[in-house]
């Protein structure tokens, strides 16, 4: 059973729809016990980091998520919340990835919205995904690169497209909205 963390931040239904298309059974839950016993956990999210962190704290999930032992996949805001901290409202993060989330700043369109290429994707999460394949992004904040970075994308600056540390994986793009390559990546996670 795949558990999708349901904490009132974002379009979690689209993640569940994607898993359904892949034939994987999933449940939406904010219950610590169910998260702890799930085979895998997906931690999605869109919206503002301070609000999302507050939702996690109210449900005690800020203590549960960083201690999960099974494979965990953070998506978009999920990735950002797994970092040390975010410039967005100076929100403290869950501290799994040793990097800081910053706001895009420069003479280019923000949010970074659309399909952009992901480089250096040689990890198992990207198995059978073409190098430089395009994934779908929508975000205004990004995680800087660090030693947990396993793939990068450049938009004004080079940032972490994907991170991995032990059982924790995270992607800044939306695999559930990235067509066939996105489905491939989700399958790789399901097989991890």
């Amino acid at each position, binding site marked *: 059973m795949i558990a999708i963390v349901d904490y009132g931040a974002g379009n979690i239904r689209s993640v569940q729809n994607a898993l359904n298309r892949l034939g994987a059974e999933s449940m939406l839950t904010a219950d610590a016990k169910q998260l702890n016993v799930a085979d895998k956990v997906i931690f999605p999210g*869109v919206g503002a980091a301070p609000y999302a962190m507050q939702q996690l704290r109210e449900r005690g999930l800020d203590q549960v998520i960083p201690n999960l032992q099974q494979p965990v996949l953070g998506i978009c805001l999920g990735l950002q919340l797994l970092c040390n901290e975010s410039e967005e409202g100076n929100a403290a993060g869950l501290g799994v990835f040793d990097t800081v989330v910053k706001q895009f700043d420069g003479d280019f*369109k923000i949010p970074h919205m659309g399909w*952009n290429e992901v480089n250096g994707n040689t990890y198992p999460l990207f198995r059978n995904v073409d190098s430089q394949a395009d994934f779908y992004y929508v975000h205004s904040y990004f995680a800087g690169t660090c030693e947990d970075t396993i793939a990068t994308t450049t938009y004004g600056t080079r940032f972490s497209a994907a991170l991995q540390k032990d059982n924790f994986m995270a992607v800044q793009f939306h695999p559930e909205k990235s067509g066939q390559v996105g489905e491939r990546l989700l399958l790789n996670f399901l097989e991890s």
Partner: protein
Amino acid sequence: MLKKRIIPCLDIQDGRTVKGVNFLGIKDAGDPVELARNYSAQGADELVFLDITATVEKRKTLVDLVVRIAREINIPFTVGGGIASVEQAYELLQAGADKITVNSAAVRQPSLIGALSERFGSQCVVVAVDTNWVDGEWMVFVKGGRKNTGLRTLDWCREIESLGAGEILLTTMTQDGTKAGFEIDITKAVSDAVGIPVIASGGAGKKEHFTEVFQKANADAALAASIFHFNEIPIPELKSFLKNQNIPIR
């Protein structure tokens, strides 16, 4: 590099896809879910669904349709048509839409843009702007293009950005349905004036029109309907053409 997006638009009436010419005269173009699935398979980068008859009683049909689309397709999609409140937007986002688009209601009540963006994030909020050339100026129209608001297009686009919109869908009514090409001047002016992405709409008839709107008007995305529905320009053919023109395309 961030790619330029190709976006088929599906006008929805009573749960079917339709497309008018200059907002008049309607042809049936098929089942929206079937079209959506085809477009996704062909490499469309995003989809837009506009319910052109969204009334209170029809809204449930629209929500049901959104649920079906969200189950079937694996690319982002935007839904609009008569959205006038945070609650209506919530219903469509809950049903599985990635973004919602507002038009007339945003002009009537600009604070709606801020309310939507605060609640769902600006990335969810696409403001549609229908513009027409009147007495030497580009003006904003509402009510399906029937009513001149008296707002100047550039002023309104700057305002909606400052109110929290995440994207602008700019339709030039002089071009809509004509297949004579996108209107370059106002599209470029808007794209240069705002810091959020701009989707150009209205006038696509040939592959070269897309080259133009990306290269000359700096559009971030281009939207079209009938040329895709009736397969006049297949999406894979369009995308390989644009790649050959050195336009960044997925």
